[in-house]
């Protein structure tokens, strides 16, 4: 397989001449050529379609909104952080009750709905213990923040102290201690090196963001969410964690001398990893069952509804469905669809049970992809088992799953939250952010998590001069950001102050200029998404009072936007291949036993895993570790990255991609108002934020019965095209938020027709971005 990928790469990536611009074009064609399906995606429509439709529909959308029949309880009507915090603060509900409910939902989601959203669900006792502490603070009036006592989850690539000491996104990749009777070795290395009594030391390996969320803000951790391995993938299919593993994440196959069966088992585990399923179809069904509940219909006080819901929550039935037969039937169907027919050791009794459901096989699979790579984060929010979920966004990893699960995905400016303790995929793009149920929740999350950041900043500056305090500023790239940001914040504050007097309270967005970039309007945009885009733009203009500004080709060039996708994959793969070098099996990486692999070349279907004959023993070990530890997608990207960094391709590929990146972010920057001030204050055509769709497609249907790839026509590189709307924003490090937009005028829409819209602004303009996003969110 390695060889095949090498060849594939070599055939697709050809060296080109030394002219930069030509390289960029070449680069595009190379990557696009390999992404067959995205090839026609990237074609610009001659006119800015969104604006056009927006004008046509200006009135219609508003009237239609009222005319549309009120749906049964919608999945977007989730428990918000502010409501939960209010219930906790008014002591109507205890944090233990709230977290117990969240834990019930999580357990139900994992065991009954088979969502695979968690790689680790904390034991209930641990959850309740945290909740108890929060509750004590709340009763004593010492609430740490709005998030105190609120159930949250954290993505698997983030270190969370004692609960998740070894951040990992793949079951197979981290070497664990062979002998558990030894002292916990990971802690020994992870702890402070000078500390002899590590056992007692509180200080374990913990990321800055987890520390802030759990220690400083007091949130209650429910579990660690699943993701695409190393954040690579946008469908949630590459989790690298198979069903055998879930719940027993750190399982390592013991060595058994020369048994090629063991080696096969290893590789199969990786092959048949379970996808992370979108809960929307089930949520829809559950809410229909819920609406039959008598007590709900009669109760229109949402506070009361949630108190009842939470107090009556059980592990078997956390959604409070009164018709238990209907629930059992639903779960039966879930079991039928999520059952993998082609599984190797598929001799479970469930197989016979599934056969009694022949009637399902006539219908299409209801299973949907959750989007990736922060799939688990979005799923836990969509399902309700946490109210804020930390994730990371490299090229759209928070925003795409948020769009597909109808949640809110927020990626702040690159470097806002320290990346320390977060497994690096592409260091220059990785951004820590979060998923929440609504923009209002995102605002609370942003205030809580960034607030302490701002406070500690002034202290940092003093120390920095004399010597580096390693514990205070652990992410050097975040520091750069903060230095830049202090100026930008200043200008944006002045900016706001100037305009405040004219603010009209009835038109909250009165002075905000919203750009609709022509360059993002692509021919392939499905009508539903184009409609949502224009409807949202309308709402902002008519209700919010914002000014819509079409951004012409001359400012944000579609040329560069088109190239950005290719540039992204070159840069991200290059950095990934470098960042993942550490998984060599010496300290980190799958702990393979070479004896198990020695005879594997005799077994059909596994020839490719045998090391080359001219390798030294160490190379053989490293090779086997990486081939069997990394998933296919990861190997593909590592190889691509290795290739573009090789000395004969560095200039033609990596450097060309870096040029594209600079051009893209410059051209987007030019459109924003904060930079216009520097350019002499002419800001007629400048904007504060831009509005674009998050994705150009709907969640794809998954059918585990089709075998290991889940989809009939799935090209491994096709998924690359999914990120075309999010990537340019990532390249520039701009803050961006994906907001679900419910198109109520479309009555016959399918469950999977969810649309996410993205609001993004200049670096450091999170406040305005959230303000605009909130207007979309609350109006739809």
């Amino acid at each position, binding site marked *: 397989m390695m060889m095949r990928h090498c060849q594939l790469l070599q055939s697709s990536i050809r060296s080109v001449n030394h002219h930069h611009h030509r390289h960029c074009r070449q680069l595009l064609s190379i990557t696009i050529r390999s992404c067959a399906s995205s090839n026609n995606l990237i074609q610009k429509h001659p006119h800015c379609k969104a604006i056009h439709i927006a004008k046509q529909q200006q009135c219609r959308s508003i009237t239609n909104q009222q005319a549309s029949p009120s749906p049964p309880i919608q999945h977007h009507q989730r428990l918000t952080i502010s409501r939960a915090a209010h219930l906790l603060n008014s002591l109507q509900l205890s944090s233990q009750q709230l977290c117990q409910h969240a834990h019930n939902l999580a357990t139900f989601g994992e065991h009954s709905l088979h969502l695979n959203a968690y790689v680790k669900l904390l034991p209930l006792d641990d959850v309740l213990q945290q909740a108890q502490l929060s509750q004590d603070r709340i009763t004593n009036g010492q609430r740490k923040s709005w998030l105190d006592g609120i159930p949250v989850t954290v993505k698997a690539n983030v270190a969370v102290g004692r609960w998740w000491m070894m951040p990992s996104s793949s079951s197979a990749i981290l070497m664990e201690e062979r002998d558990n009777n030894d*002292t916990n070795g990971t802690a020994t290395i992870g702890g402070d090196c000078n500390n002899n009594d590590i056992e007692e030391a509180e200080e374990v390996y913990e990321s800055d963001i987890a520390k802030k969320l759990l220690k400083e803000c007091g949130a209650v951790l429910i579990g660690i969410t699943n993701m695409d391995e190393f954040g690579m993938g946008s469908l949630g299919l590459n989790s690298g964690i198979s069903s055998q593993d879930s719940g027993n994440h750190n399982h390592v196959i013991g060595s058994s001398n020369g048994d090629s069966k063991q080696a096969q088992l290893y590789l199969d585990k990786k092959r048949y990893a379970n996808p992370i399923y979108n809960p929307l179809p089930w949520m829809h069904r559950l809410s229909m069952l819920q609406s039959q509940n008598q007590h709900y219909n009669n109760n229109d006080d949402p506070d009361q509804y949630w108190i009842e819901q939470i107090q009556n929550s059980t592990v078997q039935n956390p959604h409070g469905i009164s018709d238990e037969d209907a629930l059992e039937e639903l779960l039966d169907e879930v079991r039928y669809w999520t059952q993998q027919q082609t599984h190797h050791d598929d001799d479970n009794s469930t197989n016979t049970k599934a056969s009694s459901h022949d009637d399902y096989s006539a219908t299409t699979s209801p299973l949907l992809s959750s989007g990736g790579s922060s799939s688990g984060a979005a799923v836990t929010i969509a399902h309700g088992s946490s109210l804020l979920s930390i994730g990371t966004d490299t090229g759209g990893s928070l925003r795409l799953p948020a769009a597909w699960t109808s949640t809110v995905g927020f990626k702040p400016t690159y470097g806002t939250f320290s990346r320390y303790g977060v497994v690096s995929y592409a260091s220059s793009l990785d951004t820590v952010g979060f998923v929440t149920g609504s923009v209002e929740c995102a605002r609370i999350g942003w205030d809580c998590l960034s607030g302490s950041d701002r406070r500690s900043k002034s202290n940092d500056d003093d120390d920095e001069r004399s010597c580096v305090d390693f514990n205070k500023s652990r992410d050097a790239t975040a520091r750069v950001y903060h230095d830049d940001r202090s100026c930008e914040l200043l200008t944006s504050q002045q900016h706001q102050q100037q305009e405040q007097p004219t603010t009209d309270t009835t038109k909250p967005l009165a002075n905000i200029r919203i750009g609709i970039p022509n360059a993002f309007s692509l021919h392939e945009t499905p009508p539903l998404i184009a409609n949502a885009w224009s409807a949202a733009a309308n709402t902002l203009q008519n209700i919010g009072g914002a000014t819509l500004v079409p951004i012409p080709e001359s400012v944000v060039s579609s040329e560069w936007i088109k190239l950005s996708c290719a540039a992204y994959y070159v840069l991200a793969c290059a950095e990934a291949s470098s960042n993942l070098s550490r998984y060599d099996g010496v*300290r980190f990486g799958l702990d393979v036993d070479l004896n198990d692999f020695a005879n594997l070349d005799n077994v059909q279907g596994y020839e490719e895993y045998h090391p080359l004959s001219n390798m030294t023993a160490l190379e053989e070990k490293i090779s086997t570790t990486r081939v069997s530890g990394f998933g296919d997608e990861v190997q593909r990207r590592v190889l691509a990255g290795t290739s573009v960094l090789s000395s004969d391709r560095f200039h033609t590929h990596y450097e060309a991609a870096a040029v594209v990146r600079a051009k893209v972010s410059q051209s987007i920057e030019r459109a924003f108002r904060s930079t216009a001030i520097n350019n002499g204050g002419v800001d007629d055509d400048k904007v504060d934020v831009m509005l674009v769709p998050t994705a150009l497609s709907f969640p794809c249907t998954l059918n585990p019965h089709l075998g290991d790839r889940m989809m009939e026509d799935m090209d491994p590189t096709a998924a690359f095209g999914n990120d075309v709307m999010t990537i340019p924003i990532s390249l520039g490090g701009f803050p961006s938020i994906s907001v679900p937009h419910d198109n109520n005028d479309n009555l016959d829409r399918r469950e999977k027709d969810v649309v996410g819209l993205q609001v993004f602004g200049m670096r450091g303009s999170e406040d305005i971005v959230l303000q605009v996003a909130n207007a979309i969110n609350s109006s739809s």
Partner: protein
Amino acid sequence: EIGIKIMMLSTAKSIIHCYWRSLPRSSSSSLSVRLLSSSAASSQHHEQALSYNRDTGIISDAQSMQPLYQTIIGIEIHAQLAIPTKLFSSAPTKHHHHDGNNKTSSVSSTASSSNTNVHPFDLAYPGTLPTLSHAAIKSSILSAASLNCQHIHRYSKFERKHYFYADLPHGYQITQQRWPLASEGVVLFLPYSNLQNQQQGSDNDASKKKKKKRRRGRDDGDNAQEDENSTSKDDSASSSSKQQQQHSIEPVQLRIERIQLEQDTGKTTTHTTTTNSNNNKTTTTTTAHINYNRAGCALIEIVSYPDLRTAHEAAGVVEMIRKVLKHVGSCDGKMEEGSLRCDLNVSIAPVSSNDDTTSSSFDNNNDDEQSNDKYNLPPGNGHRVEVKNLNSLRQIIAATEYEAIRQSSLAIQHNHTGRETRTFDPLGGKTICIRAKGDAIDYRFMPEPDLPPLILDETTLGSKSLEEFLERYMPESAEDATARLLEEYGLGESVAVLIASDPPAIVLFEDAVSVAKAELEQEDNDDDSVDVSAVVANFLCNDLYALIKKSAIEEAGDDEDKRATLLNSISVDQSTVASQRLGLLIAMIANGTLTTSMAKKILSIMYKDDLTSSPRDIATRNGWEVISDMNVLVQLCTDVVHDPKNTKQLEQYKQGGKNTWKIEKFFVGKVMAQSNGNAHPEKMKEALASVLEKVVSDQTSSTS
């Protein structure tokens, strides 16, 4: 047996075992041990006998002495920065002093146990990020300035250099490639042989040592005047039989291309065990132990142009750079500990036949080159061969010589060497190929995305400009320091030169003097009879250095090489007695509490046996205190003189005569013994005289 296991033991002393199926390729060939005789300038090789002159760099036919080739050498020096943390993490290094006492036996006796000086970042823990150490920035800027770099770049960047090896935790090394910290430096130095001669026989006493220090303390190559002066002095001091070296005494120049900051790797040590199983099968298992204590330590890599022409030049310049870095305090220069390692790029160029084929022609050639193009290699220059990781001057010389002969023999057979990488086997005295050209590694350099560019602005430097920064932190040159010591403290020239050549000694000296003076002032001791500075300088140069040297010799044991390097790098830095205690000790001499000999004993105790107590405590504990009170002394003498045991002697004395001085001496000894040696010698004699006088006068009065 197929077996490869790399595992990390989970205890704090994690060691990584790697059982290799066979020996690594490089060491599997059997090695014949060939020791280079240290004096021989020629060695035999292959069919044609060739000889290599280490002073001229000429390879010639051993019989006809026909010059054939000239060696062309460039060097890369990796110097570990002597800073308390690693380059990108807070983990302590061997230069980290644990407590507030600024010195705790940094004489490397406290080598940390394996894999304890590690931060999660040093082990490439997923999610950890680098943070650049400010001490490393400071230290590397000082190094660059001291090597006369024209450009210390305001803007430099870090890059990743990728390769897989067990002791490289990240799978890449963070280094600088396209945007180095500094470039275009110059070092002036003397070839090795001259150093050798000056060092001979200068080991034992401080006065000779002074000459050596003087000679080699010439850091500022620009000062040619000074250089000549000291040269002539030294020549007169050393034997005149070394006339033939006179021509090469002129300093040689080496241009430095670049200086970059980078990370060190971990250390792999391999142990091979061979076991015989029953059926006559032998199994060789090589276990590799990896120690990550060194991983991530800050290095500067100094890359030179290929300006060197001889083995002795190569060794000489390494020694000079070592001294310069030590002087600015950026590197401890301990080659034996790997703090300073050296890679050589050796190639040969044919000596052109129409030229005058003497060494001087090459010297001239050398001078011309400086105005020529960048690399200005002579025509016909062969492919360069890189010899990695040389740890001593002897290895540098031996490796150059081996390469010179090896490459020449191959060239004679028209079998030119390609570009390759070799390592030096110090036991066999040979270089061994580790990578031929075809196996060259593609290091896949990539900008380091986890670190912003290093910009030497006010925030980073803490000074307004680079000039101001250097003004503030650059230690004064040895010459300036000498002048200052002469002026301010009125020291003798020899002592001043010795102290000035060792920057930590200047600090120690000045601190100790001020401590002693403050102490005396506090006691209201206005006695100006003792020159505190002179006493401090005397104790420092004689006794303290002697103690440091003694412990260095003890540490080296029988290891000749180690002994030589240790003695070469004697510095007050290694002293366990800091300025505070030395100052107090001297104050006690000055105020008459201690005699000089007591002070010497106390210093010795402070150095070896008791690393914390104040000199006063040690004196009290041992009952060492000068008795200088006249009344006490008189009482003491009276007691001894009238002691019944001494009646016989007293009677003799009373009788007078020519032997009275003997009796006097007897009483002096008795009194001294009685006082446990604490009696102030002069005053005690005075007291005794008065007592005896009284005895005699009493007698005369009684008889008369």
